[in-house]
């Protein structure tokens, strides 16, 4: 695998292979010595054109656990036109000798451009581009869910027949998109729930069901409920009348959580707006996988870095 740009172009076997490699990486993280010598002498550049704490730290931890050299590059607020700046930056990184470039960019398709433009030879890992995709987040979600369902017997398995609700701001969410493609590739049945204003156009063509009523959707007793973060940086637009109305209609409140079966897994990609889209009682319950998702993030990114940096067969 040379690049990891999206989950849409992963086949089922490829996706399961990545999840299995993640299992191996997770196993090494239980040891006293967590560091592996695998990517010694390789240089990983974190190129972040957009704010991020957990994804950047997670990639940095993953690269360091594999003994790569890590350079973190925050390129916020560039006034140069985007295409030009990306090319300049890419060529600078090439000159430094980057082997893998982890890129987050506000423009959808920027990592793809970097990978296909011929500007550089390095591998490109998409760490979130605009409202397009965030493949490592979807992989870590699938990994976490597969672990909850199959436990130690997860290897080689998909998520066949697992019913997942994805709730909230689908329109702006690259996490939702990557999850839709990956979960359905793995055999899960995905239902998207949210206000009509936050549903993307053309959703009919997606391999999902949609619902505009959270209580209705929760009554079907799904196996997992994935709450999305309400992206307050985009709240100036009038997608819904007030924060309170959103919370009342689309939040996983204590009452809604209490009505769920104890087997339903509650997921959130973080950072959480507690009391808004998710109640603390749900976020802190044993059904919540919020912290498991964070540790799965490091293992998933180790797998992604390993598979791309070594050009392993998928």
């Amino acid at each position, binding site marked *: 695998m040379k690049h990891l740009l999206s989950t849409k172009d992963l086949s089922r076997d490829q996706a399961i292979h990545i999840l299995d490699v993640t299992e*191996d990486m997770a196993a090494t993280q239980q040891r006293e010595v967590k560091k*592996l010598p695998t990517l010694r002498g390789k240089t990983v550049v974190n190129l972040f054109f957009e704010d991020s704490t957990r994804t950047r730290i997670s990639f940095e931890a993953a690269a360091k656990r594999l003994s790569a050299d890590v350079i973190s590059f925050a390129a916020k607020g560039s006034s140069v036109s985007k295409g030009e700046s990306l090319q300049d930056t890419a060529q600078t990184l090439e000159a430094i000798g980057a082997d893998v470039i982890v890129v987050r960019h506000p423009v959808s398709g920027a990592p793809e451009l970097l990978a296909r433009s011929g500007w550089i030879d390095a591998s490109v890992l998409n760490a979130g581009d605009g409202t397009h995709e965030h493949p490592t987040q979807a992989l870590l979600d699938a990994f976490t869910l597969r672990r909850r369902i199959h436990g130690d017997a997860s290897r080689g398995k998909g998520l066949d027949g697992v019913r997942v609700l994805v709730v909230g701001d689908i329109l702006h969410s690259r996490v939702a998109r990557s999850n839709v493609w990956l979960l359905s590739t793995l055999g899960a049945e995905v239902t998207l729930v949210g206000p009509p204003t936050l549903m993307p156009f053309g959703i009919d063509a997606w391999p999902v069901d949609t619902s505009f009523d959270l209580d209705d959707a929760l009554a079907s007793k799904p196996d997992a409920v994935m709450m999305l973060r309400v992206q307050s940086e985009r709240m100036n637009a009038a997608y819904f009348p007030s924060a309170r109305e959103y919370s009342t209609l689309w939040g996983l409140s204590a009452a809604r959580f209490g009505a769920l079966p104890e087997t339903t897994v509650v997921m959130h990609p973080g950072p959480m707006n507690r009391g808004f889209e998710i109640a603390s009682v749900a976020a802190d319950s044993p059904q919540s996988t919020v912290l498991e998702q964070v540790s799965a993030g490091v293992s998933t990114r180790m797998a992604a870095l390993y*598979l791309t940096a070594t050009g392993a067969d998928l």
Partner: protein
Amino acid sequence: MAARTVLQQADIARALTRIAHEILESARGVDDLVVLGIPTRGTELAARLAASLAQIGGSDVPVGSLDVTMYRDDLDRNPTRGPAPTEIPAGGIDGKTVVLVDDVLYSGRTIRSALDALADIGRPAVVRLAVLVDRGHRELPIRPDFVGKNLPTARSERVNVRLEDFDGIDEVTIL
């Protein structure tokens, strides 16, 4: 050129039984023994060897697997296969006599990786190496302690170990 069979099922079984005796002789019993196979064929050989050891030595021997993929020095040159699971028996390896088991010993690079991997997991008192076939052409100062068969080969030849669980037949061929 057709493949030539150098070991058949009975030969492999005999070699493993002999190795088990040799291990017990040098370790003076099964106490503190841990058998670790290197995936993929080594894992199966380790399981068989542990069964022999238990039968001869009279008590169970912990057996596991040790994946070395992440420790290889040739990840850039070879198309990588994915890593395989590492399973260390519950008792760990600290202070134990670890017997590494692999199917074919060739350059010695796999074993070097295995020694690195082992060092990250714990500190065995002694590490021994058992291989089904030693085909020579070492590139590192590594030698096996227990050998099923010494097989002089040319570099251009290929040694194939097939085992029932993976390939439906027990045999070693040379091509």
